[in-house]
């Protein structure tokens, strides 16, 4: 008799207590889901295909995909060695270097854009030397890549660094004992074992580069076909051609969902 009462009491409390978790979760989920659903519903209009193949949309899409891909290649080519050095470097100054590398991630993109302009602009710190060499950066597609690299590459370095540091110490020791030099250690042990971290890092870098706006519009400017990326076309399209803005937004959402799903699978397989 008492047991039944106790069980009933506990069940009542469980039911009551679970609402404390369910309601706040629901509220936050609604905040995320509703805007996305609204966007997808509004964009499902008769003009969707026409807008999707409009010149502005196609040029923005091409430019974004090409520049962000180049950004990922640069991030991987230069970021992997950097992450490797960071993971092997035993020094108390390492923390400062890590802070410096994490800075572009937290910096507001407009700050990044301004800094790039002041460094590489025509009258910038390095700019005047570049001008002499015949290299004009602002307002070019190269500037778009540079802006994206500045804000997105640190994400790759972070992921790679974590991946390298998770490689089992004993495996590294064993390889050293076997007489592997630094290069062999890197190519045959570290990269394969940290492979998943490198790939998921590359994907996150790609997504960040695709979504980059503030630094790009300040440093590279806005010119359709040359520097107008998807986020810029959305921002300007919002005022002149809502259809194109919505189509591009939906495309970006679909790409994001895909990449995040793939990244999730990779992460789940690693740990």
């Amino acid at each position, binding site marked *: 008799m008492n047991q039944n009462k106790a069980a009933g009491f506990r069940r009542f409390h469980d039911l009551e207590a679970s609402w404390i978790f369910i309601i706040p979760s629901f509220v936050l989920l609604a905040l*995320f889901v509703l805007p996305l659903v609204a966007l997808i519903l509004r964009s499902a209009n008769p003009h969707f295909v026409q807008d999707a193949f409009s010149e502005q949309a196609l040029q923005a899409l091409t430019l974004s995909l090409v520049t962000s891909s180049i950004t990922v290649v640069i991030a991987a080519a230069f970021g992997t060695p950097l992450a490797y050095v960071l993971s092997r470097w035993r020094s108390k100054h390492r923390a400062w270097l890590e802070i410096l590398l994490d800075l572009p991630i937290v910096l*507001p*993109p*407009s*700050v990044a854009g301004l800094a790039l*302009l002041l460094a590489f*602009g*025509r*009258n910038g710190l390095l700019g005047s030397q570049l001008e002499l060499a015949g290299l004009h950066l*602002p*307002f070019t597609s190269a500037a778009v890549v540079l802006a994206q690299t500045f*804000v997105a590459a640190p*994400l790759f370095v972070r992921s790679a660094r974590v991946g390298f540091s998770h490689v089992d110490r004993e495996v590294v020791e064993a390889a050293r004992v076997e007489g592997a030099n630094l290069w062999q250690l890197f190519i045959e042990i570290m990269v394969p074992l940290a492979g998943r971290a490198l790939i998921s890092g590359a994907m*996150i870098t790609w*997504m*960040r580069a*695709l*979504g*980059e*706006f*503030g630094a790009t*519009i300040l440093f*590279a*400017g*806005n*010119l*359709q076909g040359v*520097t107008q990326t998807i*986020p810029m076309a959305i*921002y*300007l399209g*919002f*005022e*002149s051609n809502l259809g194109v803005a919505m189509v591009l937004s939906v495309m*970006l959402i679909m790409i*994001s969902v895909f990449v*995040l799903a793939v990244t999730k699978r990779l992460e789940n397989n690693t740990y």
Partner: protein
Amino acid sequence: MLLIGCTGIETPFVESEPSPNSPSGLAVSTPQTQTLTVFAATSLTEAFSELGAKFQTANPSVTVRFNFAGSQTLQAQIEGGAPADLFASANQANMDALVSAGLVDPKAPRILLTNKLILVVPQSNPAQVASLNDLARPGLKLVLADETVPAGKYARQILDNASNDPTYGKEFASTVLANIVSNETDVKQVVAKVQLGEADAGIVYVSDSIAAPDLKTVSIPPDLNVTAKYYIAPVSGSKNTEFAKNFVEYVLSEEGQAVLQKWGFSPIQ
């Protein structure tokens, strides 16, 4: 998704200096103070900030809060339900759009001022621009406001006017437009790019050249220049109709117009 959201576009709310009677100096709405929210075209930044401060001194119970952006951005925001009491547009089209949308009373818009356009170049004038004609020079880096921005529309209109003039030739507009390296989202961005020396030239309002005295100016022939008409009107659904009306009367008054002219705007007629 977090990462995609990391784009730093803000439309800054500019607070005028708090009135001397406001207790803590913070611009919050207490029973003693009301907030008047004015959405105004970017080119009005300096002039309206000064007018707002003067209005506040004269009316201690009001705090004037500004949102400066391209008129097309403001129109989109108001259509999206942004809480504005007044809208000051750099052209008629954006104001008319709000009238059509039922957000502004058709009888309400009044001409605020007129503004003319001018060519600006960096202090050092790296491209040696001396006249409007020089804009057609190959390789020149020209920055204009986007064609959706009033300043951008007016600039393109000037180029079209020039194309109709035999001295410039029919190809003038297209040649100049081919020199554009960037279409900015508002006219102050054009000013900034020229100030930084990134652009060889830009077309902005006369008022912008007054607000940025470090820029060299090259005048546009008067017969080709356009007169930009700015409009101001209260936004429907605003709760501060009394103060909104007073502010409109103030900027249209002699004192208000004098301040506007100080900043390079031209009188209404």
